[in-house]
């Protein structure tokens, strides 16, 4: 550490607590409280990166979130490394490792810097214009651009850190802990409001907390001393929550705000372990006070980007707050009074200020007089026309400005310096205000956009509201806060304030040079490397809208969203195009204000908490029996149960055969179940299903098809009439929630007169389905009392029964075409019933089967699966299920649509069966179907929706939707694949047991 760059009289840095860290592999030291930027500057390191396009050396330029250059890669652990972090915002900790990003092979020797010598060849939109054509070359360019631009490296392993999210509700939220925010917080808290104050820094007090200057006093104390006392008093309020290191990321409608609190980023590596790294606060506040302050503007002149050129207010913070000298011989270049504060601070710390270049005519404010007394040379009505020094500034060249400010005149003076502070005035931080939907107004005197109208319960106070002088800040903040919070007396109404008043204002967006514009490099957007010349070129090329110019030149498009560059871009556009700035409008500031980590955005919803997993009551049995699982919505369903070394195909073939030859058992618990009760339940079913329900006898089951109002099949399932006014409806697994909400919608809004109540009972009952010729024998062992004769208990009927004294419902229904029973019982008993059935079925070699076998078995019978064989464009007629449409019913959901001109078209796609010429050939689901092969382009007339090899038929079978398919039965078609064309024949959809004999086997 270069000792002579640290002052010793500093109050914010703990100089007894030394911290070691690494930058670009080199071990360096700083102190507790340093940011990475202040620690680097204390080590005399300014050069931290290379510019994006020209690879010019770039140094630390600011001390806050607007930093465009010091954008570093932090950490080298493959799971924790973080790109694009601003050195000005990272507090150093023991073990910190950071490196430059935008340079290759190193920051001091950069190959891309040749771009700088060719820079006249790289105008605005160079990348667009050059690399867009020919398109094939992009691959080549991209390699070089990515390598040399190097926008940081992403982590390659999952993030090990813990992130958290919490809600926070309050009466008043104050964003920003500068002097106005602190006064507002105390006022609100004192008036018994539940108050929250947040600030993104680790200490409160903004810039006032280090303002120890004769020109700024409150009640006869230096403004920093006075504010420190005020901050002390905040601790006594129990109704005031203060969150430091908390950055407001987004301000949404209804005063809903997101703030990110950094909890461990500043801790030593070994202290971070097992702690929550960041917490995202979701804040709902009745009222919001924005006190986010202002940002200093740079000045736009030739070669204004060299390392060592730093915002004047940042130099002041580095010396006053961090005790770090940004240089030994400092020059300042300004258009306003604030640089004079910096001059005094530097002088107080023993740093030589060898010149101040001020574009204004001589002015006599309090603070200028103070500086004058110190004997610092002030060049009035002058401009810096050039800077020298490649990796660090070593001199500036000064010339007098012409009266109109458009040119420089006279002789050039060269001044040696190792640091240049620049100040182009101040920009209120109105980002949050505009994010919240507020409209801005333009103030011509000092060229600032200020908060105007907002629809939310909020105000802006302090410098983000355009008050830049201490006395104005205090006076106006107090007045606005009182009015906003409806408070009559305020502690701060009668403060005695001394404040220097700026008398003279002058602004030149693009400062003139003695060289022609084309020969200069006045940088505007430092991060994206665009100059004032690029803006002018864009305007010459005909771009007018600020949004277009922005995209064309990429000005303001970098990760800082143009925090430093936007105002100058607007100014230069307005000037060049001869428009008033206020009429030009601004670009949109979008959230987040500063980048958020993905970790903070997702919080705890990672890994197994990413989504809900629903498991059936016998899930553990499936796991124990080596089932493979399939995700169906949030459900885990047993897919197949491989034996020995079976693959899926082999397992499914075995399961399918066993289910038809002897018996199979399926976990059908995931099917949606809706309990329907009420005196109008039958009428309700009549209206929601296509078939008739009034005549369904108690104890009988019926299959129903549900349409959308547009006539398209929506869901299907079997519904059982349990008693006169009581039904149990089943839905598809995936459709359960949607069906319920659709039915509720009709009940509540269209048919409120119906006496019907719907309750989801999907999770309350589990379902064991046994099928196959031996299923009757197995069931009779499980429930000996139940009479299972076809007369007593026919297909499509239901019985109440008892298993070990536990009530259950047994339905004789079939989705496989086999004799089949489903036992519905309360979830907690399902697993034992399942195991009972397995035990009882042992002698019949009962075979558990999963969803894949279920799909195969139903396809053999031509039963559809909604969502697989239908896609929201199939009517029941398209599915060849005309039999299910009641002709007698006056109305049901979707009925009218079934004879719209489009739905009665004969050439609609219709469901058909497909058989391959080679019975061993299995079609791919989704494969296209064509009628001829030699015509080009070939018309695709349909596609395969379901396809399996049927072990029971010993051939491949498929379902497909084909244009006009009903009429094409028996016709030969083709399924062209990548390497061959498969010959197929259109058939009936039922492949097995057309007479339904197996149901009563």
């Amino acid at each position, binding site marked *: 550490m270069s000792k002579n760059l640290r002052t010793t009289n500093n109050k914010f840095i703990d100089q007894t607590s030394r911290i070691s860290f690494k930058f670009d592999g080199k071990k360096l030291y700083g102190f507790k409280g340093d940011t990475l930027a202040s620690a680097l500057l204390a080590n005399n390191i300014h050069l931290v990166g290379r510019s994006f396009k020209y690879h010019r050396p770039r140094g630390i330029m600011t001390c806050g979130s607007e930093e465009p250059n010091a954008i570093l890669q932090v950490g080298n652990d493959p799971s924790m490394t973080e790109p694009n972090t601003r050195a000005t915002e990272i507090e150093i900790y023991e073990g910190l490792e950071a490196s430059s990003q935008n340079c290759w092979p190193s920051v001091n020797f950069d190959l891309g810097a040749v771009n700088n010598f060719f820079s006249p060849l790289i105008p605005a939109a160079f990348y667009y214009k050059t690399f867009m054509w020919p398109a094939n070359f992009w691959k080549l360019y991209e390699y070089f651009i990515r390598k040399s631009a190097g926008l940081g490296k992403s982590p390659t392993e999952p993030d090990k850190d813990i992130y958290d999210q919490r809600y926070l509700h309050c009466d008043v939220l104050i964003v920003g802990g500068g002097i106005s925010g602190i006064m507002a917080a105390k006022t609100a808290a004192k008036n018994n409001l539940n108050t929250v104050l947040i600030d993104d820094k680790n200490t409160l007090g903004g810039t006032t907390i280090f303002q120890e200057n004769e020109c700024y006093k409150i009640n006869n104390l230096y403004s920093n001393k006075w504010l420190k006392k005020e901050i002390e008093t905040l601790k006594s309020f129990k109704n005031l929550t203060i969150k430091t290191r908390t950055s407001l990321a987004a301000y949404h409608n209804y005063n809903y705000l997101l703030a990110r609190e950094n909890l461990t980023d500043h801790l030593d590596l070994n202290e971070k372990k097992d702690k929550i790294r960041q917490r995202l606060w979701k804040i709902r506040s009745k009222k919001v006070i924005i006190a986010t302050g202002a940002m200093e503007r740079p000045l736009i002149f030739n070669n204004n980007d060299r390392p060592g050129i730093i915002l004047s207010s940042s130099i002041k913070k580095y010396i006053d707050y961090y005790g770090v000298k940004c240089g030994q011989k400092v020059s300042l270049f300004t258009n306003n009074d604030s640089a004079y504060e910096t001059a005094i601070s530097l002088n107080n710390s023993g740093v030589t200020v060898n010149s101040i270049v001020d574009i204004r005519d001589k002015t006599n404010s309090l603070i200028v007089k103070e500086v004058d007394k110190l004997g610092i040379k002030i060049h009035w009505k002058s401009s810096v026309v050039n800077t020298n020094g490649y990796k660090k500034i070593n001199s500036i060249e000064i010339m007098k400005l012409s009266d109109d400010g458009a040119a420089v005149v006279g002789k050039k003076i060269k001044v040696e310096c190792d640091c240049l502070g620049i100040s182009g005035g101040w920009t209120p931080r109105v980002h949050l205000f505009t994010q919240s939907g507020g409209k801005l107004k333009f103030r011509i005197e000092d060229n600032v956009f200020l908060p105007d109208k907002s629809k939310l319960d909020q105000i802006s106070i302090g410098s983000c509201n355009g008050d830049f002088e201490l006395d104005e800040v205090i006076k106006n903040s107090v007045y606005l806060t009182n009015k906003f919070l409806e408070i009559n007396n305020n502690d701060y109404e009668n403060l005695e304030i001394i404040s220097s008043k700026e008398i003279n204002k002058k602004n030149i967006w693009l400062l003139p040079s003695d060289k022609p514009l084309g020969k200069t490099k006045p940088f505007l957007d430092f991060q994206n490397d665009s100059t004032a010349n690029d803006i002018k070129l864009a305007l010459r090329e005909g771009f007018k809208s600020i949004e277009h110019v922005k995209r064309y030149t990429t000005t303001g498009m970098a990760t800082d969203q143009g925090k430093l560059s936007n105002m100058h871009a607007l100014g230069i556009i307005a000037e060049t195009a001869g428009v008033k700035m206020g009429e030009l409008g601004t670009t949109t500031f979008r959230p987040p204000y500063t980048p958020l980590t993905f970790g903070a955005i997702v919080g705890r919803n990672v890994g197994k908490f990413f989504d809900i997993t629903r498991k059936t009551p016998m899930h553990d049995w499936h796991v124990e029996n080596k089932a493979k699982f399939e995700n169906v919505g949030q459900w885990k369903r047993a897919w197949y149960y491989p034996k020995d070394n079976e693959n899926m195909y082999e397992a499914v073939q075995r399961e399918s055969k066993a289910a038809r030859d002897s018996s199979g058992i399926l976990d059908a618990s995931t099917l949606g179940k809706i309990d329907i009760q009420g005196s109008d339940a039958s009428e309700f079913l009549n209206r929601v299903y296509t078939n008739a329900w009034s005549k369904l006898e108690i104890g009988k089951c019926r299959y129903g098809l549900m349409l959308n*109002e547009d006539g398209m099949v929506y869901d299907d399932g079997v519904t059982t009439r349990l008693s006169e006014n009581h039904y149990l409806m089943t839905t598809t697994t995936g459709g359960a929630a949607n069906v319920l909400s659709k039915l*509720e919608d009709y009940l*509540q*809004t*269209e048919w409120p007169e119906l006496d019907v109540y719907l309750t989801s009972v999907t999770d309350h009952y589990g379902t064991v389905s046994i099928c196959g010729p031996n299923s009757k024998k197995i069931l009779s062992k499980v429930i000996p009392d139940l009479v299972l004769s076809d007369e007593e208990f026919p297909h499509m009927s239901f019985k109440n029964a008892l298993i070990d004294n536990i009530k259950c419902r047994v339905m004789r229904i079939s989705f496989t075409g086999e004799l089949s029973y489903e036992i519905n019982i309360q979830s907690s008993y399902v697993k034992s019933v399942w195991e009972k059935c397995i035990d009882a079925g042992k002698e019949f070699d009962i075979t558990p089967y999963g969803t894949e076998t279920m799909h195969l078995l139903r396809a053999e019978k031509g039963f559809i699966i909604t969502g697989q064989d239908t896609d929201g464009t199939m009517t029941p007629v398209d599915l060849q299920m005309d039999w299910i449409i009641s002709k007698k019913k006056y109305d049901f959901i979707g*009925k*009218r*649509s079934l004879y719209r001109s489009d739905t009665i078209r004969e050439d609609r796609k219709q469901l058909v069966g497909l058989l391959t010429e080679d019975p061993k050939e299995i079609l791919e689901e989704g494969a296209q179907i064509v009628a001829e092969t030699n015509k080009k382009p070939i018309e695709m007339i349909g596609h395969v929706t379901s396809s399996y090899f049927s072990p029971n038929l010993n051939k491949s079978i498929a379902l497909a939707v084909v244009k006009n398919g009903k009429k094409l039965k028996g016709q030969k078609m083709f399924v062209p694949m990548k390497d061959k064309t498969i010959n197929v024949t259109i058939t009936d959809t039922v492949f097995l047991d057309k007479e339904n004999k197996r149901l009563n086997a």
Partner: protein
Amino acid sequence: MFLINCPYCGERDQSEFSSGGEAHIVRPKQPTELSDDQWAEYLFMRKNIKGVQFERWNHTHGCRKWFNVVRDTSNDIIHAVYKMGEKPPVK
């Protein structure tokens, strides 16, 4: 993320609700007597205006009740909330 004052539960976060489109479109009592055009008018045509709009909302992750909301789509300000079957407030 605005707040909706469910007439049954009180004020809740928008994420608990789902929107059901334009309100006060009554399903025809005798659909079979409508022409294709008349039926299409009911089936497909919905307003989506910038400004004050009458909408249906469902408290999906709450009481599951449907109700009506008068919302300004340009700024999400909700002017009124009322139950199904109640008269809409005058525009």
